[in-house]
């Protein structure tokens, strides 16, 4: 059932790929505006690169969060899924995993390319990718709680941002910290471990919270 759900969401995303591409282009453009605006000052660019890439990733994820459950809620498929004899944890986990594959993995893939514009060295670029690889699932999971809570409300998108962005702060600090350490020639390892720990904690508790929120929203 898990793989069917992921497969279904991948087909849906493919048939509505404009939405996915919009998120990706948003990320690319926001990150690219900084080097263009600031000019070729290598040292400054290297200093701001970690923060810029990570903040842009947060904002780009916000764009796609609203879509995570809204479509299924409107056409009644979410109700059917909640009535299926499967565990709700697995259901949420499938939805979140599919969201991560569709909306976050493309960010992880292009981020190192964008880092080149900031004059980051090879090993810094791999830290960018690794930190996003560990951090973006956190964004998807925490975001799913917000998306589930605001389901069916007016101005849901704004509300999700207000609810979820503050909760993204730990991931932002650890992720940007890892890249910054690597830029300064230190080891990013401790930051990445902290990020991994954040991921494990959200992985354990997030889907339960999302499941409970979905039940409330559907009622």
């Amino acid at each position: 059932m898990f793989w069917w759900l992921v497969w279904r969401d991948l087909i849906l995303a493919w048939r509505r790929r404009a939405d996915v591409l919009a998120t990706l282009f948003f990320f690319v453009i926001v990150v690219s505006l900084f080097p263009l605006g600031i000019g070729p000052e290598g040292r400054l660019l290297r200093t701001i690169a970690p923060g810029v890439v990570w903040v842009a990733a947060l904002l780009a994820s916000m764009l796609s969060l609203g879509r995570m459950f809204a479509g299924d809620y409107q056409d009644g498929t979410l109700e059917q899924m909640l009535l299926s004899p499967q565990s709700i944890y697995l259901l949420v986990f499938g939805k979140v995993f599919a969201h991560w594959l569709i909306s976050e993995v493309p960010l992880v893939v292009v981020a190192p390319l964008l880092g080149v514009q900031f004059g980051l060295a090879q090993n810094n670029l791999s830290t960018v990718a690794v930190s996003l690889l560990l951090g973006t699932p956190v964004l998807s999971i925490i975001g799913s709680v917000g998306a589930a809570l605001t389901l069916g409300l007016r101005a849901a998108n704004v509300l999700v941002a207000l609810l979820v962005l503050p909760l993204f702060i730990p991931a932002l600090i650890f992720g940007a910290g890892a890249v910054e350490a690597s830029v300064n020639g230190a080891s990013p390892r401790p930051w990445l471990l902290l990020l991994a720990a954040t991921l494990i904690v959200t992985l354990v508790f997030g889907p339960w919270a999302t499941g409970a929120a979905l039940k409330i929203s559907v009622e």
Partner: protein
Amino acid sequence: MLEAINLGCVRGDRQLFTNLNFLLEPGGLIEVRGPNGSGKTSLLRILCGLAAPAEGELRWRSEDIRSLDEGYSGEIAYLAHQNGVKDELTAIENLRISSALNGQALTKHETQTFLERVGLARCQDLPARVLSAGQRRRLALARLLAADASVWILDEVMASLDDAAVALSREFISNHLNDGGMAIVATHQELGLPASKTQRIDLRP
């Protein structure tokens, strides 16, 4: 069997119904009737376990459905106002995927058989977006047939169906009852099923 004990439902500050009791046994049918806004859908959502009753309890084989949770969801199939059909998927994909999510992996051939039974064989490869309201309803009926559940909970099952499909859905319900299934149907139309096993619940606003 499904037993309701003193069910009550409150929406906002309005009491929709109280002290609702029934006992539904294999082969039995409950018709829920009442004008718009009298709480038919709210009742059905309580019976599915999607909403909690304000008072009273619902028992499946003498156990409270809240303690059964997923064990109860496996016994019911709910056809809501919304068909639960994805616009971007074709009819056959819709049925296959929704059945798989419900725990029944159908082969392609089985899926086609179900679509044939509801008269959608010709449009199986069309995206649901281009299907008419009645055809989407037929697709939802196919999901119901495929679900293999013992209790059918149907909300306005005949809405937007043509005469042929209305007859078809009557036939499905009566077959289901003959096989020892149970059904709870909210409707404005006559179901035209044998009265011996039918109970009626009239909701007043």
